[in-house]
């Protein structure tokens, strides 16, 4: 395969929230930027949200990638222009001030904390028109709010990266403010070049500099084209799994890929006597925040196929239940994982291998969260809670909730996550840091990392706002050192 040469001043690898932000700000400052994305360049309406078609088009591996450990945790990565921002719930939760202050101290991050990050968060909120609902809470969100009130717990509506037109009375009239709707068009308007369907395999190094990236481009008809991209500076923004995989394949090992942590999540369908599942309200936005950052209780999108996945029993039973699917919602428990795993590139393949040893404490917190969620929902009229354990009976009496607390068999729970962190952590701690306080790779002259892999721990909240603010901060520092063009 003959190799094609491309040149740029700044190569940005990956177009998720970190990469798209980086490419946009650099291009707007006048730099010659090439943004490379492994996935396809698809519009937001290329598929119905959360549909099988969307999973096939925009999720890596069709949404089925496990991390290994005593209990496997399935993780989800976006693989398309815009990355995870095209497929996530678009919930915008600012970082908790105490989390930022802890990171500053524990991970020795310079010029960090709530005040330092505030202006960058404001920019994120403005650029992505972060909005609360312009209409009342949907029925599933109301159940969370009323349930939390009944238990004396704090809950709040989480804003979304969403644009609502004036006089908006339905979710369907708004639009997701993903990267393809915001930062990518801005980047392109500023002269950034975008190359999709192009996978960077490795960086070519010369001493302490990266000098090129080897990549493969796939055409719509499957034809492959080898590329060598020459650059002056490179920002690797492939996310906590792909970024360390690329770097390790390039020979940059050491601490790269260690420190993987995540927000493990368990879901369970719950049935009520009244309708609680109304898709016209979009993703439920109310969360119980009483136990944050360690534990969050909330509600997911739940189309009929999603609900079926989590219901036990035979098709006939399910048909009876599913005749009333609008009376069911899919609630979740999310915890801030305390363990650390790792990511490796598999030799001879393009694939990443993730190991995350979810431990007894994390499992105990998940289980406790399920119990609290169950108690809360019974307090507001839940009739049946479907256990997240494969094959277990559903719970129809609050007094039976204790079965959740007695410990669930580890291997029989379906734990998943979309929030991954810390495989190339930032900071000044030589035992842990892969990049400095502003994303520059240690011991390398021209490699920066600017995605969630540099966040040194789980945020305890939906992480997109945090990672975009940190990415903006790091680009601002980079530009201050080099100026605009």
């Amino acid at each position: 395969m003959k190799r094609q040469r491309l040149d740029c001043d700044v190569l940005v690898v990956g177009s998720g929230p970190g990469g798209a932000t980086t490419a946009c700000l650099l291009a707007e400052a006048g730099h010659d930027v090439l943004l490379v994305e492994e996935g396809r360049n698809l519009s937001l309406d290329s598929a119905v949200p959360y549909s099988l078609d969307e999973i096939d088009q925009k999720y890596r591996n069709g949404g089925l990638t496990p991390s290994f450990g005593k209990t496997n945790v399935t993780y989800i990565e976006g693989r398309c222009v815009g990355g995870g921002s095209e497929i996530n719930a678009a919930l915008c939760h600012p970082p908790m001030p105490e989390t930022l202050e802890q990171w500053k101290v524990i991970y020795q991050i310079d010029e960090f904390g709530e005040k330092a990050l505030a202006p960058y968060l404001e920019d994120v909120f403005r650029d992505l028109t972060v909005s609360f609902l312009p209409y009342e809470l949907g029925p599933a969100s109301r159940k969370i709010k009323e349930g939390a009130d009944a238990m004396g717990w704090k809950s709040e509506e989480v804003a979304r990266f969403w644009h609502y037109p004036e006089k908006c009375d339905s979710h369907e009239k708004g639009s997701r403010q993903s990267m393809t709707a915001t930062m990518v068009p801005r980047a392109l308007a500023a002269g950034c070049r975008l190359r999709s369907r192009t996978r960077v395999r490795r960086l070519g190094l010369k001493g302490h500099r990266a000098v090129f990236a080897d990549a493969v481009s796939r055409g719509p008809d499957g034809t492959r084209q080898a590329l060598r991209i020459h650059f002056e500076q490179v920002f690797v923004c492939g996310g906590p799994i792909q970024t360390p995989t690329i770097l390790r394949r390039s020979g940059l090992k050491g601490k790269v890929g260690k420190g993987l942590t995540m927000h493990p999540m368990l879901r369970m369908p719950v049935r009520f006597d009244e309708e609680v599942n109304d898709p016209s309200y979009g993703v439920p936005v109310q969360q119980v925040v009483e136990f944050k950052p360690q534990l969050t209780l909330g509600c997911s999108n739940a189309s009929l196929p999603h609900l079926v996945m989590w219901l036990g029993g035979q098709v006939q039973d399910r048909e009876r239940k599913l005749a009333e699917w609008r009376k069911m919602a899919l609630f979740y428990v999310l915890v801030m994982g305390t363990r650390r795993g790792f990511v490796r590139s598999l030799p001879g393949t393009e694939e990443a291998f993730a190991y995350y040893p979810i431990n007894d404490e994390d499992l105990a917190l998940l289980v406790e969260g399920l119990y609290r969620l169950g108690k809360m929902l019974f307090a507001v009229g839940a009739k049946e809670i479907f256990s997240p354990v494969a094959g277990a009976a559903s719970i129809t009496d609050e007094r039976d909730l204790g079965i959740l607390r007695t410990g669930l068999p580890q291997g029989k729970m379906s734990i998943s996550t979309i929030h991954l962190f810390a495989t190339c952590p930032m900071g000044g701690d030589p035992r842990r840091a892969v990049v400095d306080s502003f994303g520059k790779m240690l011991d390398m002259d021209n490699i920066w990392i600017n995605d969630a892999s540099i966040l040194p721990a789980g945020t305890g909240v939906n992480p997109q706002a945090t990672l975009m603010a940190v990415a903006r901060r790091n680009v601002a520092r980079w530009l201050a050192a080099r100026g605009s063009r």
Partner: protein
Amino acid sequence: MVAEAQGADDVMDPEALDRTRATMHRRLQMMPRFLGIPMIGATLVFDWGGVLASGLPFHRQSAAQRRKQLETWRKSSIGFLVNFVDFYEKMAKFTYFYELHERKEQRDEEVSG
């Protein structure tokens, strides 16, 4: 096969079942190789493991026999066997009901369009 095992033959929509089979085959091919190859191997073991219990491979068993084999693996103390069945069941259920329910709604919208 798993989808069929979940219900009596007469309650399954044949068109949706066909599309489910095709989709599941495609999803297996989308898996990373380090996972997909062992999964295909495990699937073959599952299929021919049915011979030990019922004298027939899974794909030739009746719906009742298939449900029994699924139940045996589901209740196993070996985590991998439980995960295997759980994986296929979830994928089959999601795909079948998506094909049955969501695609039908999309087609109805197109017709009324």
